[in-house]
């Protein structure tokens, strides 16, 4: 579904991504793990056009994403859940979700998606009129995910969904990710919490200072000595 060939991204003189290639197949849950500053978020931003790629190819179902402006990419069926719970703080929960469906013209479809998202996240339904800024961290993360689901995406990019959440909430968020995956949504997950990420993923890539150092089945990486020592604290 998504194919990246030899991607390079720089911020001025700093080379953040130094030529990575990765692939996500239909229905797969692939995670991208690595330490701080390895370039995980930059990779996602390059995919959804929020930072320009210097060279390389990003192809989603035959469409070159590098030539597509960010607001059009979502129309191709790819949604992005940004890092750090970017919710619209001074808008209500429901308005936030409606923003997610901004590009959907059909009103009955929007309503249908709203019901579906409320089904996935009953907590959001309870708080539909509350201002998003007053939600707890976990609820805001759910809202950001729910908003991304409003367009009925084929593929979702998730950036650090567990960041700053309590262990119980992390579990809850990951069980939601699993259930989305079970519904057939393709997911590219970026995580620092490598253990959790590997335990739900099909495959994974390990990113180290802008280069992919390892890749393979998640279950194998989970037992790989080098990965265990570097990222799993064992």
């Amino acid at each position, binding site marked *: 579904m998504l194919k990246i060939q030899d991607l390079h991204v720089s911020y001025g003189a700093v080379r953040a991504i130094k030529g990575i290639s990765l692939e996500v197949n239909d229905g797969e849950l692939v995670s991208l793990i690595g330490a701080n500053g390895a370039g995980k978020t930059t990779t996602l931003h390059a995919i*959804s056009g*929020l930072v320009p790629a210097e060279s390389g190819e990003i192809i989603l179902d035959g469409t070159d994403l590098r030539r597509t*402006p*960010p*607001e*059009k*990419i*979502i*129309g191709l069926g790819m*949604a*992005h*859940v*940004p890092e750090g719970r*970017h*919710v*619209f*703080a*001074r*808008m209500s929960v429901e*308005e936030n979700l*409606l*923003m*997610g469906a*901004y*590009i959907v013209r059909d009103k009955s479809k929007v309503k249908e998606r709203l019901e579906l998202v409320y089904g996935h996240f009953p907590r959001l339904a309870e708080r539909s009129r509350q201002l998003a800024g007053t939600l707890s961290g976990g609820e805001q993360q759910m809202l*950001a995910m729910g*908003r*991304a689901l409003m*367009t009925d995406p084929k593929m979702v990019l998730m950036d650090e969904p567990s960041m700053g959440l309590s262990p119980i909430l992390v579990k809850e968020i990951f069980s939601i990710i699993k259930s989305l995956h079970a519904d057939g949504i393709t997911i590219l997950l970026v995580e620092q919490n490598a253990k959790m990420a590997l335990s739900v993923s099909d495959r994974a890539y390990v990113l180290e200072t802008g280069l992919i150092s390892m890749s393979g089945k998640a279950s194998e990486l989970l037992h790989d000595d080098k990965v265990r020592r570097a990222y799993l604290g064992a």
Partner: protein
Amino acid sequence: MKKAVKRGYIVNTVVLAAVYALCVVLAAALEGNDNFKLTIVPSIWQCCYLIILAASLNLVLGFMGQLSLGHCGFMAIGAYTAALMSLAFQRAGVYDEKSGAVFILIMIACAICAGLLAAVFGVLLGIPALRLKGDYLAIITMGFGLIIVNVINNLPFAGQNGLAEGTAAASLYATGLGFGSTAKVTYLWFAIAVTILCVALMFMYIRSKYGRAVRAIRDDEIAASASGINTGYYKVLTFAFSAFFAGIAGAVYACCNSSLSTSSFSFTNGSILNSTFVVVMVVLGGMGSLTGSVVSAVIMFFLNYQIGNGSWVHSLPGFIQSIFAYPMLVYALVLIVIIMFRPKGIFGTYEFSLLRTPGELVRLLKRHGGGKKAAGGKEAAAQ
């Protein structure tokens, strides 16, 4: 939800029509009254353009979260466009008396053209400027406000001594539009109708899908862009929309003055039309509340009027009087006091609503067990 929205539109339209009718009837009844003619009517005219101006800046400052310090530049464009156009019509002999259907049509056309030209400048300024944020945007828009005044001054057909046919002075004698006190009473309906229409249009804009996108951009640009919103487009669109109404405010301004001078729109001391004054109005009313802007425009007008003309000023100690000679100092003080004690302004993001507010007020009064707050004023009801 849908039904409530429809009901809201119906109730608001009916009440606005009633308020409007009341104003017109009152104006007719009081026509002979000197105090009404010489003080109250000109004040209402000034309030009208200040309301439109403050509400239009609130679109950019409150709802889009971008600081623009050049809003009076758009107003200047609108004022000069309306004045020059009406003057041209008069010279061409389309009308000579300021009455009749033809004149009213010309007045409306002038106001719309004033708005459109201001909107064109809004697009031209917005495309480069809105790539910047915060302080940088403030500086570039402020620069625009200063430059546009000089540009107008140096136009051969306007400004310094162009339009008055070489007769004099640094002002443009817009004999075409400028209303005397009798004409101001006659056309009071026009000022009120334009104000109600403009604020209603802005209200509908922020409540629409576009408005929701704009508020989303204010809250989080990255998330907005990830939701499929073309942030650049919406920013420029809103900026132009806001400039359009600032231009119309300029047209109303041109109507109620016998002469136009660019110094009214620059950062000179006596002028209340400088862009910082408008920012104070928006902040006082609440960034993100159009009804707040309406109320605070009226408050600031009265403050300004009282500082300049109130008889009570003369009974104050000398040093306060000398401060009042520089109204800008007072507005700065007002701004500081607001930021210290009520940073979100009078209304915050709350909108006065005919459907909700009466009920909420009753509840508030009950909770405090007595009459602490008086009901909202007529200005607020005009929403």
